C-alpha cells in the first residue's frame, strides 16, 4: 500500500477519528427521534458525516496517482516553546502576578526565534513589563493579580 497524498491521508484519519469519537460520545446522550430530537441527535449525525468525509479522503489518498505529494515538514522547536510558554503563563499568572509572569513569558518565548539574544531579550522583557503595568494596570484598570500572591497576601 502506497500513500500518494500524505496530507489528505492524515486529514482523513483525523476526521475519521473525531467523527467516530463524536458518535461514540453521543450514544451516551439521548438520541430521540426526528420529531423530538434529543441532545445526542445532531452531534451523532454530524459525527457520522465527518467520519464518512474522513473515509472518502483516506480512500482518495491511497489511489495511485502520477504525482506524489510531500509529507508535511515539521519544526517542533518553535511549536513546543510557544505552546509551553502560553501554558506556563496560564499557570504562573495567579501565584506570581502579572509583572513577573510577563517577564517569564517574554524570556521563555523569545527563545523560539532563531535570532535569540540574551541582552536584547532582557531589555525587551523589562520594557514590556513597564508597558503592561502602564496600559493594563494603570490606565485600563484590568482586574488582574499584579503582584505575587505571597506579597499581596
Amino acid at each position, binding site marked *: 500500500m502506497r500513500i500518494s497524498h500524505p*496530507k*489528505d491521508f492524515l*486529514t482523513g484519519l*483525523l*476526521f475519521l477519528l*473525531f467523527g467516530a469519537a*463524536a458518535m461514540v*460520545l453521543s450514544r451516551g*446522550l*439521548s438520541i430521540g*427521534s*426526528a*420529531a*423530538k*430530537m434529543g*441532545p*445526542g441527535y*445532531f*452531534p451523532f449525525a*454530524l*459525527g457520522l458525516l*465527518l467520519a464518512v*468525509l474522513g473515509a*472518502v*479522503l483516506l480512500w482518495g489518498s491511497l489511489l495511485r496517482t502520477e504525482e506524489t505529494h510531500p509529507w*508535511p*515538514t*515539521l*519544526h517542533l522547536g*518553535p*511549536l513546543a516553546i*510557544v*505552546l*509551553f*510558554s*502560553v*501554558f506556563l*503563563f*496560564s*499557570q504562573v*499568572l495567579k501565584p506570581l502576578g*502579572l509583572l513577573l509572569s510577563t517577564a517569564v*513569558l*517574554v524570556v521563555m*518565548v*523569545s527563545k*523560539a*526565534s*532563531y*535570532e535569540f539574544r540574551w541582552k*536584547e531579550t532582557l531589555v*525587551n*522583557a523589562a520594557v*514590556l513589563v513597564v*508597558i*503592561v503595568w502602564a496600559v*493594563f494596570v494603570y490606565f*485600563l484598570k*484590568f482586574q*488582574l493579580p499584579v503582584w505575587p500572591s505571597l506579597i499581596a497576601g
Partner: protein
Amino acid sequence: MELLSNLALGFQTAVTPMNLVYCLLGALIGTLIGVLPGIGPVQTIAILLPTTFALPPVSALIMLAGIYYGAQYGGSTTSILVNVPGEASSVVTCLDGHQMARQGRAGAALSISALGSFVAGTFATLVLAVLALPLSELAFKFGPEEYFSLMAFGLIGSVVMASGSMLKAVGMIVLGLLLGMIGTDVTSGVQRFTFGVSELADGIGFVSLAMGLFGICDIITSLEKREKRDLLKSKLTGFMLSKEDMKASAPAVARGTLCGSLLGILPGGGAILSSFTAYMIEKKIARDPESFGKGNIKGVAAPESANNAAAQTSFVPLLTLGIPPNVVLAMMAGAMMIHGIQPGPRVVTSNPALFWGVIVSMWVGNVILVLLNLPLVGMWVRLLSVPYRLLFPAILLFCCIGLYAVNNNTFDIGLTALCGLLGYIFHKLECEPAPLILGFILGPMMEENLRRAMLLSRGDPSVFFTRPLSLAFLVLAVAMLIVVALPSIRRKREQAFKEG
C-alpha cells in the same frame, strides 16, 4: 424620506464628541494593527473587548468597527512600502503596489489606495443603510426552516470561498459544528462532551478558539520561516495623482467597490475574497494584462476599494439577520452580546440610535482615515523596522492578557494553547480554519432551528423544501456547490488562489 431621517439620527449619535473620540481611537488602533503583521482585527478586538465594558454600547461598537476597517487601510500601507501584507486581505495589493513603490511611485500608490478605500467605504455605507430596513423586515418573516437553510447556505458559501480541497473544507465545517456542541445543551440542559470539566459547561470560548487557530498558529508558522524583511528606503514624495492615473483608476475603483460590496454581503465572503476577485476581474478585462504585477495602478485601486467595501457591507447580514458572515464579524457579534444587544432584525427597531449611529460612524471613520493616514505613513513605516523577534513576544503577551480578561480565568489561556496546537496541525495538513470557525459560531443556532423546525413539522423534513424562501436558499447552496465542482471552474479557482 425615511432613509434621510434615519441617517440624520445616525449623525446625531455618531458625531457627539465622545463617540468621535472612540471612532478616532478605533480607526487609529486598527491602522496600527493592520500595519503589524501577525496580529489581525480578531486578536485586537479580543484584547480590547474587556476595555469596552465600561463604555456605553454605541461607543464600544463604534470603536470596535473602527478597528476592523482601520485594519484594511493599515494593511495596504505595508503591502505597498515593504511588500509585507499586514493583513490577509492586502496580499494582492503587494503584487502591483510594491512594484509601484520600487519604481518611485509609492506616493501615488498610497494615495490611490486611500482614495479608493474612501470611495468604497462611502458607497458601502449607503448600501448598508439602504438594505438594512427591507432585509430586517424580511427577516421577521423567517421561521426556523428559513434560518436553518440560510445558515446551510452560508456554510456552503464558506466552502466555496476557502482555498484548497473542498472535501477538507466541508469536513472543517462539520468539525466546527461539532466543537460548537460542546457545553450545556440549551433545550435539555444536558452537558455534552464536557468530560466533567466545569469550565467547559458554557462551551469553548470563541475568543480562545479564534486566538488559537489564528493568532498563536500564525506566530508559530512565522517563526518557522526565518525570513528577513527588506525595508524600502525610498523617499515618499508625489502623493498627487496625475491625470492618467486618475483616468486609469477611476473605473477600477468603481468595479472594485461593486465587487466588494456584493461579496461582503455573502456569508463566507468578506474582505479577503473580494480583494482577490477584484484583482482577477481587472486583469481579465484589461487590454494589457501582462502589465499587472509590474506596477499597474489598477492592480492597487481595485482590490483596495474592494476590501474596504466588503469590510463594511459584511455588517449587513449581522445587523439584519443576526448571522455573522466571517470571523471578525463573529467577534463583533460576541461584543454586542456582551453589551446586552442580541444581533438580529430587532436591533433596528428596538435600538435605532445605536444601529444608525454605528453605520454613520463608519463613514465618519473613513473620513478620519483619509485625513490621518497619508500624513502618518512615515510613522507606520518606522514601526515596521522593529524586528519580529522583539515583536512576537509582545503580541503573544497581549493575546494572553486579553484572554484572561474576557472571563477572568486562566483556563481560557491554557485552552488557547491547545487550540494553537490544533491550528498548527490544520496548517500543516493544508486545512483552512475559517470554515471551522463559521461552523463553530453557527452550530448551536443551526441545531436549535433544526430542532424547532422538525418539532413543528412532526419529524417531516420536507418542510425545508416546501417553504419557498427556505427552498431558494437550499437551491442556491446546491447550485454554488455544483458550479465550483465543475472541472473547468475548479481549475480556474485553483489558479486564482495560487496566484494570490
